[in-house]
């Protein structure tokens, strides 16, 4: 019973309990908070496995980026602060059977695998990781092309997300703007296409 095993037990307990919380909580806000602890626990697992860069990236991208995005999605799409969509009784049963069956299947499969145990301490990999992403490894095996493809993919996805998220908002003010009072006139003029302004004002 050394320190690593104790640390793994603690981090794994936090991760597993909050994963149950995500799956079982009915309020989306609470599920988001549980998801925060799950993601932090997974980042702790990465640090425990000697993947420092990946742990930091998990904290920055997931906890700092994706989770904020999810929480904003919850805030925008919820009708009330703690609105709950009821799940049918049968869906809980089907989901529970499916999840426990899958867990049993994967668990038995991974128990039958070989059990490699690493004896040497984890070596830092940040330097090699950066070099292989930049394509300057000595053995010629690099990940420059996937890196570039992923970066272009991120750009395309961000443009598409921005377009998708504001496509509807152009249409809706035409119907609702006469009811809204006190909106700054310059803002309304700027956000509307030029030909639609008289229609909105009437």
């Amino acid at each position, binding site marked *: 019973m050394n320190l690593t095993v104790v640390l793994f037990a603690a981090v794994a307990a936090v991760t*597993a309990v909050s994963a149950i919380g995500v*799956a079982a909580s009915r309020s989306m806000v609470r*599920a988001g908070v549980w998801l925060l602890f799950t993601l932090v626990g997974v980042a702790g697992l990465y640090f425990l496995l000697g993947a420092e860069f*990946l742990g930091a990236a998990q904290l920055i991208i997931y906890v700092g980026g994706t989770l904020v995005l999810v929480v904003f*999605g*919850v805030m925008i799409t919820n009708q009330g602060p703690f609105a709950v969509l009821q799940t049918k009784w049968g869906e809980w049963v089907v989901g529970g059977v*499916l999840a426990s069956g899958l867990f049993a299947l994967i668990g038995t499969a*991974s*128990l039958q695998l070989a059990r490699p145990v690493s004896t040497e301490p984890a070596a830092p990999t940040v330097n090699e990781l950066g070099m292989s992403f930049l394509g300057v490894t000595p053995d010629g095996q690099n990940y420059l092309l996937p890196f570039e493809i992923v970066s272009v993919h991120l750009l395309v996805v961000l443009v598409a997300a921005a377009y998708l998220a504001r496509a509807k908002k152009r249409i809706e003010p035409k119907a609702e703007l006469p009811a809204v009072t006190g909106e700054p006139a310059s803002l309304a003029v700027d956000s509307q296409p030029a030909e639609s302004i008289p229609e909105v004002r009437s």
Partner: protein
Amino acid sequence: MTELGLTPFLILAAFLFACGVFCLATKRNAVGILMGVELILNAANVNLVAASRFMPELRLEGQVFALMVVVLAAAEAAVALAIFLNFYNNHGSADVEAAKELKG
């Protein structure tokens, strides 16, 4: 890391995956389903990083693939939330049961 092998990490990842599948099956809010997808992707990532630690031939590859998964998950979350916002503007609800016809 003398006593801890690959197996505990695989079991934990299997548990995370099962929780994600349960989330996908039972949540009716679209954002909840997105949370289930995030859980499943994190389970896959734990597997990849554990493989990179305990298998010397995968030492770099596991972390590279895990980083790719993290980036693609962030992109997927952004697009999915944009679609959900659009859907919510059209239907006035985040319930996936209301998505029986999607004509925009």
